[in-house]
């Protein structure tokens, strides 16, 4: 009853190609942004910021990057974490070696470097596809991390390899508390998500989708596969690079290769699968799910321990978590293969007709 676009007429081309053509969607988005920018910072606890909200937002950004590549351009990649690592380490080096560089410029620089690396490792996609490509991107994962560990220049010849990230400051204003970090991350993620949303519904996004659906046909109708694929790798790696820099600076506080292992790549891939491949919304839903799930599981195990006095040892608890995590992923894939974003779509359709059956 409330969610219905009847009576909303579009009288100009601008209105017709608006990013959110339905008024209720616009109101909803504004509400979400108000909650995220105003209400959450005023109410949430520091623990909530640093354990949930910040990683969730940062990983959404990485998932968004992977989704552009895998969901829209159809190129399966398992090297996401490595591109994040490039972003983090290059941002570190920009801040370290270029005196007085603005923080955001350093992050963007990290992203651009990640994009360059992404193009190099995207080159094989011109010849190979599918799982062969996925395995080939594993080369990026292992090679880049090895490079970052072995080449001393990247870590500024730090013997331990774990570097403390420089404090974040924009125009002299330092982002120290979890709350401030959250707001910085949120602003960056909002801007980049908006850019992604616009990209995928424009010329570039349509080229990517054409390549994804059938590359030979796309080539025949005049899309240059090399340009489109490499652009997808570049844009995706840029997003991942910025996410990686934020991951190091706003979340971990350290820059270390170990944080960007294969496990992280897989987790980000899970996010887009569970959230919904080829949707911008899915990246956010999926990352919320994957970040919250382990925490919820460990809280659940602790709760069972306390209330039922089961005395589950921690090793059993962690293995149970692993099993439930794996089991839930399989369950989700079976029940809703198109991801959480699809559930939202279905809900929207239902809402449109509610309270009538049809």
């Amino acid at each position: 009853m409330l969610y219905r676009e009847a009576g909303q007429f579009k009288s100009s081309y601008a209105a017709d190609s608006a990013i959110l053509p339905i008024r209720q969607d616009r109101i909803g988005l504004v509400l979400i942004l108000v909650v995220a920018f105003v209400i959450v910072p005023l109410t949430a606890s520091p623990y909530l910021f640093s354990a949930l909200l910040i990683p969730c937002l940062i990983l959404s950004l990485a998932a968004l990057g992977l989704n552009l590549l895998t969901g829209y351009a159809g190129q399966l990649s398992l090297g996401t974490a490595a591109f994040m690592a490039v972003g983090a380490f290059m941002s570190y080096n920009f801040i370290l070696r270029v005196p007085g560089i603005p923080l955001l410029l350093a992050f963007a620089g990290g992203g651009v470097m990640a994009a360059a690396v992404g193009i190099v490792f995207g080159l094989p996609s011109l010849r190979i596809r599918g799982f062969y490509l996925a395995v080939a991107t594993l080369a990026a994962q292992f090679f880049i991390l090895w490079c970052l560990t072995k080449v001393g220049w990247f870590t500024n010849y730090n013997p331990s390899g774990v570097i403390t990230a420089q404090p974040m400051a924009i125009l002299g204003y330092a982002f120290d508390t979890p709350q401030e970090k959250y707001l910085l991350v949120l602003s960056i993620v909002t801007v980049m998500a908006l850019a992604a949303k616009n990209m995928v519904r424009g010329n570039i996004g349509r080229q990517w989708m054409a390549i994804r659906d059938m590359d030979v046909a796309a080539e025949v109708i005049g899309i240059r596969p090399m340009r489109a694929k490499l652009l997808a790798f570049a844009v995706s790696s840029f997003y991942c690079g910025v996410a990686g820099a934020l991951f190091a600076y706003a979340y971990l506080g350290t820059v270390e290769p170990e944080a960007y292992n294969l496990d992280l790549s897989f987790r980000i891939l899970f996010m887009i699968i569970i959230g919904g491949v080829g949707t911008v919304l899915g990246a956010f839903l999926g990352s919320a799910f994957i970040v919250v799930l382990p925490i919820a599981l460990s809280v659940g195990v602790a709760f069972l321990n306390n209330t039922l006095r089961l005395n589950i040892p921690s090793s059993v608890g962690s293995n149970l978590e692993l099993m439930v995590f794996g089991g839930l992923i399989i369950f989700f894939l079976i029940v809703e293969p198109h991801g959480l974003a699809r559930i939202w779509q279905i809900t929207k359709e239902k809402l449109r007709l509610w309270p009538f059956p049809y």
Partner: protein
Amino acid sequence: MQFFFEVLIGGLLSGVMYSLVALGFVLIYKASGVFNFAQGSLVFFAALTFVGLMEHGLPFGLALLVTLLAMILLGLLIEKFVLRPLVNQPQISLFMATIGLSFLIEGLAQLLWGANVRGLDIGIQDEPLAWIADPTGINVSKFDLAAAGIAAVLVTMLALFFSRTRIGRALRAVADDHQAALAVGIPLQQIWAIVWAVAGFVALVAGLLWGARNGVQFALTFVALKALPVLILGGFDSVPGAIVGGLIIGATEKLAEVYLGPYVGGGIEGWFPYVLALIFLLVRPEGLFGEKIIRRI
């Protein structure tokens, strides 16, 4: 030169061990088009179950039998509860499901048997063979040679199974064309169950050998990652490809580590196979023996 041959032979023999893991991947990919990331976990599960049973005092043979049954059961369960509901889903969904599956199996294995590192003794010592070492001065590990022998027997058995038995022929038919196989009355789901059971058996063999070599520990699951470049080198759907790919990867990896490693700081074993496979793919996108894919609009 002597040293070169020693490294080469050592590499080739360890390549055989990679092939064993890759073989499990190929079997499943061939029959059902599923890229089974959980193969490494199956290897881990098999080794851990076997060691756990031995610790409970079961004799070698009985433990082997029980583990084999457990692996077959596990394979059947996976087919029934994971793959069957996911029929007709895109390949990437199936791939993700097997990653989820690998978490599940790893958790289950450690829940049942604990996470300690254990030794596994299958009665073959890891010592140089005297009759090769004495005249030529090249050390060849007895264990590696035995592992290669076991792999050879296994591959021969599988080859015979595929080409001579009724089930084997049905398997090849399914691999060739699901629809056509269904049309001539081959029970697809039974075939898939059998494939998973066979993959469980291969995982058991690989698990015993790898476990005896490196100790039974969580790191066994990473063996699967080593098998991936073998797969792309050999082609996902080719049994001989898995063997030849394993040999190439094993040999070049060891040679690169010994001759190239010192110049770049070592530790290149981790990525060298991937980069090698990547360069190789640029020349032959479907691997050494993979089926050539013809695409039409």
